[in-house]
């Protein structure tokens, strides 16, 4: 077996006594450590001996453990590799699934992919980078957008605004809008006059003049209703209604 790969690019060359400095923090996890070890075989990753790699890893971890605590994920990998090692060394069991060879192949594929990205990162960082190799104008004039405010209003807005001002500011004459009303007296008078004409039950609305429209009609309905109640109280009309909100009928009181 080879010496531990202490002269590898990532791991500084150190005396064994300084191995504490060569903590596992030098690696980005067990796969990274495996890749570093694999590189020390100095062959293409496709031709790597997984068995030799497993040996390297287990030996390395054993040495590290003698000196310091080793993070759990490195130990998990060690356990798995120990299993893989024994499986690879034992006579092949065709029933075993996945086979140790397949597990080894997967490990190899993972190492290849990590290696590819490791190299890609190095090549990327070595490119001509802005601020290190190539430089931009430090203080460009910049391109500016200037917003031009454009106010918008229509003539209608203007006139209605003025209308509102006028309304708001002409409170001197308190304009209670004059409402067309039919007074109770007028309704009483009207109803008394008609009650003698109609002989049978007639609906209240039939007593209203037909030219009463709009608000005036509503007022007439209200005052005629009150007038009808008053006449009924005086015993001069009879009232009849089939139910709430049904039409109200009246006729002259039967003598």
């Amino acid at each position, binding site marked *: 077996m080879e010496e531990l790969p202490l002269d590898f690019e990532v791991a500084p060359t150190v005396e064994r006594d300084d191995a504490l400095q060569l903590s596992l923090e030098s690696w980005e996890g067990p796969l990274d450590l495996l890749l570093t070890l694999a590189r020390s075989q100095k062959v293409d990753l496709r031709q790597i001996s997984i068995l030799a790699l497993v040996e390297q890893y287990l030996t390395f971890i054993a040495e590290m453990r003698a000196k310091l605590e080793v993070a759990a994920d490195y130990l998990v990998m060690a356990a798995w590799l120990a299993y893989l090692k024994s499986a690879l060394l034992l006579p092949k069991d065709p029933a075993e699934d996945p086979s140790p060879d397949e597990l080894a192949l997967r490990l190899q594929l993972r190492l290849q992919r990590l290696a590819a990205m490791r190299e890609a990162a190095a090549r990327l960082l070595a490119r001509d980078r802005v601020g290190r190799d190539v*430089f*931009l*104008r*430090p*203080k460009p*004039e*910049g*391109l*500016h*957008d*200037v*917003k*031009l*405010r*454009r*106010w*918008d*209003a*229509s*003539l209608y*807005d*203007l*006139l*209605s*605004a*003025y*209308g*509102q*001002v*006028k*309304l*708001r*500011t002409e409170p001197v004459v308190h*304009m209670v*809008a004059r409402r067309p009303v039919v007074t109770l007296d007028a309704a009483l008078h009207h109803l008394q006059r008609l009650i003698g004409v109609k002989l049978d039950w007639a609906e209240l609305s039939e007593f209203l003049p037909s030219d009463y*429209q*709009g*608000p005036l*009609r*509503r007022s007439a309905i209200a005052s005629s209703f009150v007038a009808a109640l008053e006449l009924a109280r005086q015993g001069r009309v009879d009232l009849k209604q089939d139910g709430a909100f049904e039409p109200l009928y009246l006729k002259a009181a039967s003598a």
Partner: protein
Amino acid sequence: MNPIDDLERAIEAMLFASDEPLDARQIAGRLGDEKTPGEIRAIIQAIAARHAGSGIELVERGGHWHFQTPADLAHLLRRERDDPRKLSRAASEVLAIVAYHEPVSRAEIEAIRGVQTSKGTLDVLMEAEWIAPAGRREVPGRPLIYKTTDAFLQHFGLTSRKDLPGIEDLRAAGLLDPVDLAFEEAIGELDLVKDGEDA
């Protein structure tokens, strides 16, 4: 075109990437003083000449040189964009008051509106160029008075101020109806329809 020599490229790049305008001595220093400031100046002149008439120019300010965009292209570097905004209710009222009562002072506007008018409201109308100061009223305090402008007439499609509808016209158009009366009328119409259906 002849290839540009390395020294000229180097000086050009320095001038481009520098935070501050550089003089010939500074450039010579950065180049390890292998050239005299005089030689550097000659090269700077050549660079300036090469860019002459392009969209980039190398200019001298007090012996220091820097790149800039030509002044005649400055308008391309700012883009003006319309930002339409609806006139606020308050501003519409003030504008209408100026139009109907001009010339008016701010105090008069406030008296008519019955509320205080912020300076900003008048500013907006002046920014829109719809009103303009029209001198001062010769009363104590000599307040500024305002009137509408030609731009105002143009925007609102008026030939002259006489085109503004009179108070009677506004009333006829319903613009002077109190809100509650207008509401009742609308309700009354609904009742008529109902009555019609009942009949």
